[in-house]
């Protein structure tokens, strides 16, 4: 079972790496910001699988911290221009 979980962690990491290559290529900032979002779910998944795979339950608390802070970078990204940060123009 432990080996299966570690293999799954490796698979999730590999998928994250592939997506990362695409996201970091851009072209726009929004595409690059996706890399942060991708790594958020990817690293939490890999961390849980890998940590429980090696039998370390305290990774759950690490993942919880990451989950609380997951949206943070994206929020920083949209609050650059304070005036129009969150206002949605009429379609």
């Amino acid at each position, binding site marked *: 079972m432990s080996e299966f979980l570690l293999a799954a962690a490796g698979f999730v990491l590999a998928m994250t790496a592939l997506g990362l290559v*695409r996201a970091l290529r851009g072209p726009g900032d929004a595409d690059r910001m996706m890399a942060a979002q991708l790594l958020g779910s990817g690293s939490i998944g890999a961390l849980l699988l890998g940590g429980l795979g090696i039998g370390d339950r305290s990774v759950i608390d690490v993942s919880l911290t990451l989950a609380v802070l997951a949206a943070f970078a994206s929020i920083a990204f949209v609050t650059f221009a304070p005036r129009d940060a969150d206002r949605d123009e009429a379609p």
Partner: protein
Amino acid sequence: MSFALDLLTYVAVAAGAFFYLAGTIGLLRFPDTLTRLHALTKADNLGLGLIVLGLLPHAGGVADALKLVAIWLLVMLSSADAGQLIARAARRAMRRGEPPAP
């Protein structure tokens, strides 16, 4: 019973990994920013949810299991919001006709 739980872990984790694969394929194959964002923020969350489901029997007890579920809910919350926020930023950039940043 233990066999049934192990089976649950195998099936759910494998299914979760599949959705990570799906999300990555979407990210690689979809043509523009908004569709890629869609693939990323939907599929990966489902994948994480299935992985959490599969790991529940391996959590130490009820408290750890609840924390696992909380992680999933928090990631869904932040992913849904971040997806919207990034999409709006992308649309603003498109409206400005901003050239892609170097």
